[in-house]
């Protein structure tokens, strides 16, 4: 506790690494196989990452699925779904610029869509994503894969595939660093709250 106070007084928030680069990789490998298993193969599978950090995770999952199933087209079955315009807190937040939404050429109708995000917390991002999906097509099944589930849900939403369940206090912050988006190593850290 003393360490914590001295560290934060030095301007550095207290950080605790909970997943290393290898841990993240192992978790994603497991999720990739879970996705294949739940879908009984790769038929109609589409991975949609939620910006920013869900997309690189979806990309990594797609590569792992393709490595296990050579018939899986990692590029054609991957997309990005921006949910900015569908958030329920737009009016209470500073304006956010939307990010691109890119869908596979074959569309979403009749597909098995796996939404991919980094941290599942209140569930509100996922609710916005479900709303955004409705305007884009009619998937046969929608599933959710997240790297970290930190609890504190505010809506009746749960993930189908979880990299790590992480009990946290709501004052703490969970930060996911991915080499594709952030400079530096892949890791998941918990920062103590103020």
């Amino acid at each position, binding site marked *: 506790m003393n360490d914590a106070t001295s560290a934060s007084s030095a301007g550095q928030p207290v950080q605790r690494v909970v997943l290393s680069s290898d841990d993240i990789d192992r978790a994603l490998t497991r999720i990739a196989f879970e996705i294949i298993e739940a879908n009984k193969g790769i038929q109609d599978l589409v991975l949609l990452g939620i910006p920013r950090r869900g997309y690189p995770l979806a990309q990594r999952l797609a590569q792992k699925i393709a490595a296990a199933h050579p018939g899986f087209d990692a590029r054609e079955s991957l997309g990005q779904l921006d949910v900015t315009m569908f958030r329920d807190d737009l*009016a209470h937040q*500073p*304006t956010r*610029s939307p990010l691109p939404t890119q869908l596979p050429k074959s569309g979403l109708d009749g597909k098995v869509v796996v939404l991919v995000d980094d941290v599942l*917390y209140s569930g509100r991002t996922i609710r916005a994503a479900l709303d955004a999906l409705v*305007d884009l097509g009619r998937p046969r099944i929608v599933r959710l894969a997240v790297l*970290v589930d930190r609890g*504190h849900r505010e809506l009746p939403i749960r993930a189908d595939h979880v990299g790590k369940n992480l009990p946290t206090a709501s004052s703490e912050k969970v930060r*996911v660093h991915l080499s594709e988006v952030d400079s530096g190593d892949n890791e998941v850290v918990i920062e103590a709250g103020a």
Partner: protein
Amino acid sequence: MKHLLSTQDLSRRDALDILDTAEEMARVGQREVKKLPALRGRTVVNLFFEDSTRTRISFEAAAKRLSADVINFSAKGSSVSKGESLKDTAQTLAAIGADAVVIRHWASGAPQRLANTDWIDAKILNAGDGTHEHPTQALLDAFTMRRHWAKLAGTDSAGTDLSGMRVAIAGDVLHSRVARSNVWLLRTLGASVTLVAPPTLLPVGVESWPCEVSYDLDATLEQGVDSMMMLRVQKERMHDSFFPSAREYSRRWGFDDARLEALDRHGLKDTIIMHPGPMNRGLEISSAAADSHRSTVLDQVSNGVSVRMAALYLLLAGGRDAEDHSNDAVTEGIPA
């Protein structure tokens, strides 16, 4: 950004933010469900004291695609013709609960007046005021040019500017709010602008604007132009004899068939021809030029909806007291 009144006080970052957001809005226009819920429950008033087709329809379509409620108000057939003042009109709109007012007015500075007084506490978007500014037109022009410029460079247009692009704007600069807004914005985005007009149709003080001025359209074309924008000869504002005859104007400053061929002769195969509309065919632009593959007139109209969606979204979607541009501070894992 609190209001969108002019392009002169628009920073490079704000301008690029609007253009990048417009790229995303353009994608929505291609979907089956052309609607976003972002402005649900907000009321946008189109307050038009001057006639307009394109701008009003475009703003209306933009607001509706963002799920806002739209009230159209034109001075004709309203209490304005009974002598109601701008202040009373504004206060009426405030009482109705307008969140944004899109205003076109024959008096330069009318939008500024609405924004700076306490008559109404709404976001003000200038849709053309007198001979002052027409910022959303300049933004949609810049958006059209940027897409063209990025396509030539083989890059994605999001995030890029207009560095190195040579733009010529020809015609009635004196009365043109489009020209003014374009000069400031294109300069901010890194393009070099040349105004081409008869001396009688150039405003006093044009030498202090951040652009070149020429009286000779052929010479400007010969020097090389990447985008040629023709302005409408505004007959409704032509109360003096600014040029001897329409034929003489057309021959010296109109974009006619000979000048269309001259583009090929000068090797300018990628030059686009722009016009803010409505066109006076045969006066400032020939039909062959207006209908050629170089013409971006219809692209400009459809881009107008995307750009106005972006402007409405960026002005209206955020919290009333929240600060602008703290995008980067939004972090995953924080409750949203």
